Structures are given as structure tokens and as C-alpha cells.
């Protein structure tokens, strides 16, 4: 600037007219002019402008957060229901009371070997008889005590139990039978049974059906009808009709019609089109709890199994046709169907929603590149400033004072310079890992360590320049005018080193970004959920990702290369512009 003023003053003294006046540019302006004439430098500026816009504005424009995880629904052939051909008898009693366990156990045990014949057993102090009414359908009867018959010589007495009234005809018949030594007789269609009790007494009882046992299960199509189809009369009539091959039956005064098919059947109220209930030997249960299987579905499964099909189509409640496949497992039929599942959308291919797909955490790669760019660029600038700050102070002091201060500081620089870089960074990374430093703190620590490890180059340059500058006349002038030392160093010497420092810093920025990326790639730098370009490429150290998902790691690498290239172009352009020897 002072040079420039001098020239202007000269111009005034000579009083040149406009025609002869030489147009003079300030040194800064000349550097700028030389710079913008450099094509590569302009390309570099454009690249850097794009990178800054991409990183700092891109994050604002992107609809996603950097740690937003995306999900997708996927369909998979999963177990949906299981079906089994029923081998356990189901019991229904006349009065609705449950049948005792002992009776059921006896029944199940004996019925297996019984074949067509009737069986009888004693349980709960009563005699039980089982009558086979059809394939897999039994009527279970028992005696019901009515009276005690005593035969003592000529004294014969029929003593009715409390609350039972017997007609004379019954009493007579009982006595007759007792005299004959017991047995059964029938009056008015009712079978009476006389069994021997203590001494000369007989117990008179009726033999009556109290329960039915069947292998079929009933499902009401309308849950309101569950009561109707659970009644004893209905079941008994339905079972009988099924066994005898009839197409209609009557229960409780209502007529029903029947459509039977091998093991299953549909029951209609007479004259109605929609079935009332379906009957089947096949029991269908959902695999997961909380799933309700409709009767239609169960009927479809039963039908498919009865027809020995391995797959069937079913139109669900939404009117969508679903394909179900059936496979055997042991005695069970397992029904598989395509089901929707909710998954993290990992390694999604590029699409409009995610132009570069998603990464292994299901996060949008493009958004992470934008936020990662912020961190990469930020680390570059902060480390560069830190290096220059330390380097200028130490180099400036060392160069200005010389002597033992210089020797001491320069040996310190030597020491720092010769400490191997990567061992220190690896150890620092391991320490930060072990202390579980939070991601944000980790960035600042990383910047501090990189700055501390990298300032020696700047210090050497500053010292070297100042060593030669301090011998020049303008420094003698500052000494003569009594300017204090710190001002002499930092206001008069350091600004003269600035052009060189700016060039070096610009080139150095690229290197810092490369180093940070390398550290992050090795897993020593930026950690999840934050990202830097280096840590995004880290995904490629997994061969599977490298081979199959180029869109995750190649863009990040290109961004690094372009950014560093941009800084190098600009730095090179600046050097050419600052250097008067490089005439064009």
C-alpha cells in the first residue's frame, strides 16, 4: 500500500495530464487480476463454491435429518396358521355342565379299541354306557338313581328317592325284575335299569343319554349364532343327520338344511342362503396370538386339506386375493402366506426419495454426504487456523529473536516433527474410544490433536521468512521509531509472510481434509451418528458393501477428491498470482 501511495504522490508532483497518466493498480488488485486470469483457479473456485453450497445449504434444503432412519415394509412367506385333523373328542352335555375328567379319560381310553361295539365303564360311582351312533360320534349315557328296591322274603318295597315320583306301573315292573334277579325293562319308551346293591336291595335307575362326543368342531359364521349352534339339541340333530346322510334336520322346532362333504359340512337355516355354521374335523388356529381367523378362512383351509391341495387362494376381507401354501410338519398342516413386515431400509437402491440410496443404518446417503461435508470442511478450516495460529506465534518469536530462543524452539519443532503421525493418531483414537467420548466432543478433540500435530511446517516457513525479513531496512525503521516488539513481529513481519502462508494454507486445507478422511476411514476419526466423507467411505471396507452398493461409497470419494482438487487449484492459482516471477 505504501508503495502505491508513493507512486500516486509522484504522479501529482509531475502533474501528468490524463493522457499520459499510467493506470496503476494496487498490489492486491494485481494479484486478483492475475488470479482470475488463471483458468484452473477459477475451476477450483467453482468447485469449492459448489462444495460449500452442497454442504452448508444442502443440509437446510434436504427434507431429512442426518440421523433419520428409514423403514420399509417387506413381504415374506411366513407361517400364518396351523391346522390339525382333530383326534380329541369334544363333549357336550345335555344340561351344559362339564363332564368329569375321569369320565372323559375312561371314554377316550376305551373308545380307541371299541370298534363298532358299545362300551361301558364305572366312574364317579355310576355306571356309564357309550353307544356308537356313527363314525366319530358317540352317545354317552349313565344311570340315574330313582329308587331302592328291597326284597326281604315276602316283604317287597320300592322306596323312591327324595323328590322322585314313580308311577305304579314302574314300581310293579321294578318288583318283577327284582324278583327275576335284576336287569332292565322298558316302560313308555324309557329304559329302566335294576342293579344289585347291598344284600337284598336293588337300585332302580333310568339309563339316559347325558352327553354326546364328537370329533367335529362347529364354527358359527355370525358370532350371534354361537349360542344357537352350541345347544345340545342342535348338535345332536346335526350329528345324526350328518351320519345318516340326510340333508335336513330339525332342532328346537327350527328346520335346518345341510350340505355335507366328506369331513366337513355347511349348515343353513332352512331357506337362507348364508350358511349358519360350518362343521369340520379340521381345527385351524392362528400361529400368532391376537389374530382372528374368519370362518370363511377356516372353511377354505379345511376344504384345501380335505382335497389334499398344497396351495389355495383366499379372498380376504379387503377383497384381495391371497395365495396360501400348505406344508406338513409332523401331524400338523402349516399354512404360509405372504405377510408384510416392517424393516429398516438398509442399502436401498437409488430412487427419487433417496437419490443415492440408503446406507447400512437405513439413513439417506445424500443427506449424510451433505452433513458430512460440513464436518469435513469445518475440520479442515479449524485445523488450518489452529496450525497457523500456533505456527505463526512460535515461528515469529523464533525468527525474530534468534539465538538460544531460536535454537530451543526449533529443536522443539524438530522433536514434534519427527514424532510419527499415525502411531500417535491411532493411540489417540483408541484412547477416545475407551473413554467413550461423545461424538461432538470427539470432533473438537480430533481438531485439537490434528492442529497440535501439524503446526511445525507453518512455524518453519514463518521463521525462515522472518529471518531474512528482519534484516531489511523497514525493520530498522520500526526499531528506530521505537515500536514495541510484539507489534514489530505481528504487525510488520508476519503480514509480509502472509502471501506465502495463504498459499500454503490453501494447499494444506486439502491435505487436512485428506488426513481427516483417512483417520475416519480407519475408524479413528468421526463416529456414528455423525458423519464425515471419510467415515461414509468406511462402509466400503466391508467387501459386501464395496461389491454391491457402489452408490454408498463412490460419491463420498468423488466429493473428497473434488474438494481437495479445488483447494489445490486455488492454492496453485494464488501462488502464481503472488509470485511476480511467473509472468504470463
Amino acid at each position, binding site marked *: 500500500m505504501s508503495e502505491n501511495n508513493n507512486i500516486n504522490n509522484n504522479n501529482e508532483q509531475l502533474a501528468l495530464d490524463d493522457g499520459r497518466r499510467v493506470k496503476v493498480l494496487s498490489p492486491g488488485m494485481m494479484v486478483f487480476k492475475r488470479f482470475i486470469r488463471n*483458468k*484452473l483457479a477459477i475451476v477450483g473456485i467453482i468447485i469449492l463454491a459448489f462444495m460449500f453450497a452442497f454442504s452448508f445449504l444442502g443440509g437446510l434444503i434436504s427434507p431429512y435429518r442426518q440421523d433419520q432412519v428409514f423403514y420399509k415394509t417387506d413381504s415374506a412367506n411366513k407361517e400364518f396358521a396351523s391346522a390339525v385333523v382333530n383326534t380329541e373328542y369334544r363333549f357336550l352335555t345335555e344340561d351344559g355342565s362339564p363332564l368329569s375328567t375321569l369320565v372323559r379319560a375312561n371314554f377316550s381310553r376305551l373308545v380307541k379299541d371299541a370298534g363298532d361295539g358299545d362300551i361301558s365303564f364305572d366312574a364317579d360311582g355310576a355306571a356309564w354306557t357309550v353307544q356308537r351312533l356313527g363314525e366319530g360320534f358317540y352317545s354317552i349315557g349313565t344311570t340315574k338313581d330313582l329308587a331302592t328296591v328291597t326284597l326281604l322274603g315276602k316283604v317287597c318295597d320300592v322306596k323312591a328317592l327324595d323328590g322322585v315320583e314313580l308311577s305304579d306301573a314302574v314300581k310293579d315292573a321294578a318288583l318283577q325284575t327284582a324278583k327275576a334277579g335284576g336287569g332292565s325293562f322298558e316302560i313308555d319308551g324309557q329304559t329302566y335299569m335294576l342293579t344289585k346293591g347291598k344284600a337284598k336291595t336293588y337300585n332302580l335307575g333310568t339309563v339316559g343319554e347325558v352327553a354326546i362326543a364328537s370329533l367335529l368342531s362347529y364354527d358359527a359364521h355370525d358370532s350371534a349364532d354361537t349360542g344357537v349352534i352350541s345347544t345340545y339339541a342342535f348338535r345332536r340333530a346335526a350329528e345324526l343327520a350328518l351320519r345318516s346322510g340326510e340333508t335336513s334336520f330339525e332342532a328346537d322346532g327350527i328346520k335346518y338344511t345341510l350340505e355335507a362333504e366328506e369331513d366337513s359340512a355347511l349348515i343353513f337355516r332352512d331357506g337362507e342362503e348364508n350358511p349358519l355354521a360350518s362343521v369340520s374335523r379340521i381345527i385351524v388356529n392362528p400361529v400368532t396370538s391376537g389374530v382372528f381367523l374368519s370362518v370363511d378362512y377356516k372353511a377354505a383351509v379345511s376344504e384345501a386339506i380335505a382335497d389334499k391341495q398344497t396351495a389355495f387362494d383366499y379372498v380376504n376381507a379387503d377383497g384381495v386375493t391371497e395365495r396360501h401354501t400348505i406344508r406338513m410338519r409332523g401331524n400338523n398342516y402349516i399354512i404360509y402366506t405372504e405377510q408384510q413386515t416392517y424393516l429398516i431400509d438398509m442399502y436401498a437402491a437409488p430412487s427419487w426419495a433417496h437419490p443415492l440410496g440408503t446406507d447400512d443404518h437405513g439413513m439417506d446417503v445424500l443427506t449424510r454426504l451433505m452433513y458430512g461435508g460440513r464436518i469435513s470442511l469445518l475440520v479442515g478450516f479449524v485445523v488450518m487456523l489452529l496450525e497457523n495460529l500456533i505456527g505463526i506465534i512460535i515461528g515469529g518469536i523464533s525468527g525474530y529473536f534468534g539465538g538460544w530462543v531460536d535454537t530451543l524452539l526449533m529443536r522443539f519443532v*524438530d*522433536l514434534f516433527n519427527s514424532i510419527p503421525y499415525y502411531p500417535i493418531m491411532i493411540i489417540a483414537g483408541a484412547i477416545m474410544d475407551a473413554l467413550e467420548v461423545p461424538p461432538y466432543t470427539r470432533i473438537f478433540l480430533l481438531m485439537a490433536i490434528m492442529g497440535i500435530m501439524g503446526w511445525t511446517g507453518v512455524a518453519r516457513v514463518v521463521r525462515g521468512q522472518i529471518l531474512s525479513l528482519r534484516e531489511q531496512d523497514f525493520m530498522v525503521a520500526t526499531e528506530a521509531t521505537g515500536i514495541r516488539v510484539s507489534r514489530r513481529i505481528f504487525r510488520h513481519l508476519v503480514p509480509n509472510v502472509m502471501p506465502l502462508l495463504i498459499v500454503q494454507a490453501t494447499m494444506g486445507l486439502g491435505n487436512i481434509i*485428506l488426513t481427516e478422511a483417512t483417520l475416519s476411514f480407519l475408524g479413528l476419526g468421526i463416529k456414528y451418528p455423525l458423519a464425515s466423507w471419510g467415515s461414509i467411505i468406511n462402509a466400503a471396507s466391508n467387501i459386501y458393501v464395496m461389491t454391491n452398493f457402489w452408490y454408498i461409497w463412490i460419491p463420498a*470419494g468423488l466429493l473428497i*477428491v*473434488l474438494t481437495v482438487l479445488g483447494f489445490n487449484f486455488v492454492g496453485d492459482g494464488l501462488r502464481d498470482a503472488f509470485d511476480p516471477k511467473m509472468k504470463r
Partner: protein
Amino acid sequence: MWKFIVRRTALAIVIVILGAFILYGVMRCMPTSFVESLARQRAAASATTGGKTYQEWLAELNEAYHMNDDVLTGYLNWLGSVLKGDFGNSWKYGIPVVEKFNQVIWYSVVLNVITLILEVIICIPLGIQAARHQYSGFDYGITVFAMLCISLPTFFLATVLKYAFSIKLGWFDLYGIVGRYHEQLSRSGKIWDMVHHMVLPTLTLTMLNVGGLTRYTRTNMLEVMNADYIRTARAKGLSERVVINRHAFRNTLIPLVSYMSYLVPSLFSGSMITETLYQIPGIGYISYEAMVAGDLPFTMFYSVFLLALTQASLMLADIMYAVVDPRVRVN
């Protein structure tokens, strides 16, 4: 002159000793040390047989590996045995550190020497041509190419090369120095196998280093081409070939040789990232593994080796300057 050499040597030794102390201190700060993981391993192995617990193993191993000493005592012990020429046994590899070093260093040296030769063959002609046709399209092309090489991150370049040549084309293996059937090969087959595995690492290293040397050659050549004696040579009517080869290029050799002398130490320091990415068992990869495992003797040896190497090359450069250039005055 002798006084300067002696003083410089003494200084270098002090720096090596201090630097080693800093490294030792940092190594000892490493939270998951080798001893701890070994104790955990042994405790887990002997847990079923009712052996010692982790705590007991830790105490015993700390005693055995002298980890109970404070940092200064530990360092002095280490320094003492080093001065007697004993660098100890590597914890991770279980053999003397120097022996392991001897096993692996040659991979790195071969890799780097080939790279250096390739670099010289590629860079110097390119740099000279670029300088001869300054600001031509060719020059711009070379500049952009050189800048691109400088700007490439090692790991990205290596990954792209692997993706292209190993996965897509299937020409090379992804990792390692030997193939799967190395043992069954004949002697020449074994050598060929290793050469084959060295191709990608060499390509990576060469591409990374080509940029710097090309730019350096171009800059120096440009300076020489602007010199008066070149104009004189042209004015004499010498052919362009003679001007370039005899007068210009010979003068650029001085800075070039000094630049390359800086590269010599890097032949031995290995190239940690490249070797790690290709798992070439050179000094870079082996020492990276040792560092990650917390192998104190090996890491210390490697770091001190690097320290000494750096110091020696700096010292040599200082002395050479003083010897070669009469304008540089020592003291």
C-alpha cells in the same frame, strides 16, 4: 565443520531419546492394553477348569510384562536394554522385534523401490514436456492430472482399484501378498505370484506420488528454461533436443536429486495405509497391527526407527548443504 557434525549428531540423539519417551508415555496411556486383553483371554480360557480369575491373571501378567512400573522407570528400563542392543520380544508376534522387522521390511522396501523407479520413469519426461509447452493443452492436462493424483485419498484410490480390477475384472486378488495355492507353486511360480499381488499396491502408491514429482520437475524445468544460458544456447543455434537434454535438464537434476533424497527414508518407513488396505505384510501393515493390539516393544521399535531415520536424513541434508553449497555457513 567437525564441530558442527558432532553437535548436530548429539542433538539428533537427544531428540530421538525425548521423542521415544513421549511415544512410550502415550503408549502406556493406551486404555485397552495388550496385557488386559491377554488376561481376559486367559481368564476366559481357564474359566471352565476353575483356573485363575481375570484379576489374578492381570496381576500376574502386569508383573511379567513390567507394567507395574511407573512410566519413567519403565522407559528407563526399556532404554537400558535398547542401549545393550536388545529391543525385546514382540508381544503380538512372540519373536524378537528385530527378527520380525527383518522378515517384513523387505516387502516394504521392494514395494517402495519399484514405486520410486516407476515414478522417475513417468514423472520426469512428463514434467519436462509440460515445461517445454507451458500453458499448452498438454501442459494443462499434465497439471490437472498431477493435481488429481495429489488430491486422491489413498483409501479411496485403493478401493476403486480393487473394485475395478479385483471385483469387476477379476484380474487380481483383493488382499495379501500370496495367493491361495502359493505353497504348491514352483519357485518361479511363487515369485510370479508375489509380483502379481504387488501390482495393485504399486499402482496405488505410484499414482499417489506421481503428482508431486511431476509438478516439481515442471517447476524446476520452467525456472531453468527462463535462464539466460538457455537463451544463449538457442542463440548459438543448437538444436532443441540438445538445448533441452544437455543444457536445461542437467541443471534441473540438482533440485531433483535433493528432492528424491528426501524420499529415501520413506522407502523404509513403509506406506502404512496402502499396505494395510492390501494387507501386504510390510512394515507399515505389521506395525499398524502391532499398534492396534497395543504391542509395546514392536511399536516402540518401529517408532524409534522412524524417529532415527527422520533425524538421520535431516542431518544428512544439513551436512550436505554445508558441504555442497559454499554460501551456506555452519555455526
